[in-house]
């Protein structure tokens, strides 16, 4: 079993590629891998509680982890309580820790 770290930087409304990444992440979880999705830059926009297209829900329901960059949230005026349930704010240090632990890291 591997641990995958997916850094999602794209706005879900700007590109449907984000949906494809979410599908990939979900399939990795289904295959028994550990997956952490770290939303960053405009990637955090899709994590707002009111967002219609929250792509990462099914992956999270199956045990995947969804984090949102605190800095990107602050830049966009999104408070922690305004996030979709299951999304946790996190500092960039988490990315460094996960990289150091040997995660397979994908930037999107």
């Amino acid at each position: 079993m591997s641990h995958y770290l997916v850094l999602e930087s794209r706005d879900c409304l700007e590109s449907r590629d984000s949906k494809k990444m979410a599908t990939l992440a979900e399939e990795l979880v289904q295959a028994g891998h550990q997956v952490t999705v770290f939303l960053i830059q405009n990637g955090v926009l899709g994590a707002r509680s009111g967002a219609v297209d929250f792509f990462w829900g099914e992956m999270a329901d199956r045990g995947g982890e969804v984090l949102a960059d605190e800095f990107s949230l602050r830049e966009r005026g999104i408070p922690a309580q305004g996030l979709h349930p299951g999304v946790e704010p996190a500092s960039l240090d988490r990315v460094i820790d996960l990289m150091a632990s040997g995660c397979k890291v994908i930037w999107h």
Partner: protein
Amino acid sequence: MNSNLTLTFSLMDPPYENARSTTAFRLIEAALRKGFHVNVFAYEGAVALPFLQQRAHANAVHGRDVEQEEHPLPHQWVQSLMRLAEEKGLQLQWVNCGLCVDERGVDQAVSGVRRGTPGDLWQFAQQSVNTLIIPAS
């Protein structure tokens, strides 16, 4: 302190184009603050990030002079990261793709930046506990 471990980052975006550059600088800083040695391989437009000839400018539209505008210069951010690494006794190796430098005429880089080839990225990856490629799109 993780001073025997190295992380590698590969960047492709030119300065002033995309938030990915800012994120890359944040990642490099976070890695250094956590005590990791850092390798950077700059490819394509990213070789202009440490270009010394970047100049701050005034903003006539908003009526601000050079000091008031306080225009950010990425080469100064690279210098700051170099200083941070030195203060912490860590290595920050920054290699600019030589062909990309020549194509763009950005051969005056801040101290500590050297020319190289994609072979350096391969070597960096071999030496590192992990490598993050941040593509341009």
